[in-house]
């Protein structure tokens, strides 16, 4: 019985491995086909192939940038903005994506969320950089406290360094929290539907709060059924049909 189970497990693992390898192997083909379709002017087909590469698990800024370009060429400004934002999320310093994003946002007249002054300052670094800063400062504080606590002669300088490092790690935690809950945080989303209106209640005939052009930025606050409650570019809040909005983070 045990032998049978071991064989069964082996077969299962082999199938999973084959499936994963197959999916990863398909991604380069899909990207190559997408590139060929794009160069041939078949932008919708290019979008489909890029999307299949993403569905297969490929994640890199260049891929999302190219998908954004293909979406824009296919007439989907909202899709273009969404994918440029994704490219910038994966690689904050991606000048091509940023330039194209500004261009398409301007053309689509997409509304953008307003950044606070501290978000403008914090945007100079990425969450990954703050994550590293957090880890380094935290472990430095831990080592300094350990050395100070176990030393025969306790050095005040060592204690000061430990406190400062702990303070730095606390600041890093705060910054990470602010970034993750801020404009470009986990709740950052793009309006992909046409003629989307944010409303005061979860009903199609409820009063309108704001008309959101495609590609507009919103921040999802909560979800109720087929509706999401979102922070809007004009500092108001409203209910938007869930199918009209896509989160930037996959």
């Amino acid at each position, binding site marked *: 019985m045990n032998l049978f189970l071991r064989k069964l497990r082996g077969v299962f693992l082999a199938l999973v491995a084959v499936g994963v390898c197959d999916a990863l192997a398909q991604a380069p083909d899909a990207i190559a086909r997408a590139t060929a379709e794009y160069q041939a002017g078949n932008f919708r087909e290019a979008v489909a192939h890029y999307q299949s590469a993403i569905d297969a698990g490929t994640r890199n800024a260049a891929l999302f940038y190219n998908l954004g370009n293909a979406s824009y060429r296919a007439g989907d400004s909202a899709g273009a903005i969404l994918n440029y934002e994704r490219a910038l999320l994966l690689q904050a310093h991606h000048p091509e994506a940023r330039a194209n994003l500004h261009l398409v946002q301007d053309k689509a007249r997409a509304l953008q969320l307003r950044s606070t002054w501290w978000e403008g300052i914090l945007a100079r670094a990425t969450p990954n950089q703050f994550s*590293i800063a957090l880890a380094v400062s935290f472990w430095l504080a831990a080592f300094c406290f350990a050395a100070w606590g176990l030393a025969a002669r306790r050095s005040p300088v060592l204690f000061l360094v430990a406190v400062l490092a702990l303070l730095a790690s606390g600041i890093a935690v705060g910054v990470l929290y602010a970034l993750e809950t801020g404009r470009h945080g986990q709740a950052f989303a793009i309006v992909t539907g046409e003629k989307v209106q944010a409303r005061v209640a979860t009903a199609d005939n409820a009063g309108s709060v704001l008309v959101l052009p495609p590609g507009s930025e919103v921040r999802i606050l909560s979800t109720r059924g087929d509706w999401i409650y979102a922070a809007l570019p004009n500092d108001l809040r409203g209910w938007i049909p869930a199918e009209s909005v896509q989160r930037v983070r996959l």
Partner: protein
Amino acid sequence: MEMKMSTHFRILILGLAFLATVGVRPVLAAEPRVTAVLSNSETDVGQPVQLEIQVTGVSNPKPPGEIMVDGLEIQSAGTSRQYQMQNFDISYSFTFAYTVLPMRAGRFTIPALEVQAGGQVLRTPELILNVAAPAGRSSNAGRGSSNPNVDPSQIGFVEMILPKSVAYVGEMIPAQIKLGLNMRAPVESLGAGIQIAGQGFTTQKMTEPRQTIENINGRSYQVFIVKTAISPARSGKLEIGPAEINPVVRVPRGAPRNPVMPRGGPFDDPFFNNLFNDPAFAPSMPKEVHLKSEAGTLEVKPLPPNPPADFSGPVGTFIMNVDVSPKKAKVGDPVTVTATITGRGNFDRMTAPVLANENGWHKYPSSDNYKQDDDVGISGTKTFETVLSAKENKQSLPPLVFSFFDPVKETYVTLRSDEIPLQIDGGAAATATPAQTTAPAAGNIPSAAPTSTPPPPVDDILPQLDDRTASQSNFQPLYAQRSFQLAQLIPLLVLLGFAGWKWRQARANDRELRRITRLQQEAAEAQRNLHKNGSSAQEYLAEASRVVQLKTALATNVDANTVDAETAAAAFRLDEATRGRVQRLFAQRDESRYSGDRNGNDALSAEQRRDILELVENLRG
């Protein structure tokens, strides 16, 4: 005495007579009787008649049970009681009322009915009812289809009140519709509601009816008042109405007209004609009644020609307030302009105010919210929110313009807000032409540092990138990735190792310190003993050599018991003379320890002791 007896006897006789009068009369009056009558012995199919069973002379009669006659539907309509007391004579009268509804034509006999009264069983006489089939109506018509001839004007009325007869196209004219229903015709429902007939105008949603009771010409009416507003859609003479409604009321089941009631009088209606005027006793049925008002006429004038360019159709009287938020923003950031228009008129034709000068602004579609102040929605506040984004630096928001037609002044009015100061910066200086979006040219990737020469304006996206060699990325921030979290185990393990090492070091240091302390204490004690005179030569030599061993152990970190003269000499780098003295000390100690009592106190002089003490005390590392 005889006189007294006679007086008492007379009083007794009078008392007995009184008691006989009071007590015997009710007994004599309590002779129960029962009668039964029909209100009419001739009737038609569907025309009910009343059956009354009257019982007198008994206080608690029990009415007959269910009366079953084939072809007749007989239902109880209630019981009335009457008590009368006159000269201590109480009379009772009970009337049991029934409604008899003929279901078919024929001659029917209502059998004798049994009434239990005062322990007796009384029987009513048999009654005969002749039922004829009505002309033009089927004899087997159901109960619900019986249709009494009711004059709608007796049921109720509808009035439509228009406050003016001349208006402009698009003007909102409040209207009030009054529906009165006779209190004798209880309302079951108002049907589909009030409809205003006519063409060329629109009607606002009607309010929920407000109910009152009014007395009109001696009759009580339940009055429903409904408000709405009418807006003419074209000019000319319009006929408004009539207002129509089909309420469902309960009407009596076609009781014959009471000949007692004078014709044409205020009581000449089906309700008062009923033999039993109280609706509680009168049988009734629901009936839909068609009521309508008289039509009104409205002379509608067209709006004057040459309206303002931004006029979208609002007619009325309005005021406007404008605000903008935030007052400080960057170029491209959205700012929300809120225009609040308050007043009275056709808010449904109202569109958002427009910017007097849209140059340098992106304008997005407006959203609106209307809050009405009255029941029909012709008075209220409409708030427009328009998102703008500046394409260039701005110092103020241009005025907002809103035009409407004022039917009172009979002219167009244009409201113009003040310029609102705001600060929008961060972009290029204001130019006459709209700013173009700038993006780096293909293949010319801009650096993060600002350049002195702006890149040339382009109007297309940058080309594709080679994404085949790009490394795999992750949307999750580093701190949320499993690999990063697992990597923290490395510094954690290093920290644990470091802490363990430091702890072991501290413990070792602590053990060495305790050993040194112990050795120092023992050496000091031994030196103190050397200063004492009471010890034997063997003890003195042993103490002195022990001090040498302890000092050597402290200096060289070796076990004190293993120290000999050579070790001590090497540890303290002694010269030959001192080395010889140490060697002699250790030799003497060994000699005294192993030679027994032969070497006693006398074997070690005081001078020798001082010499040994000096040697020991001068040993320093």
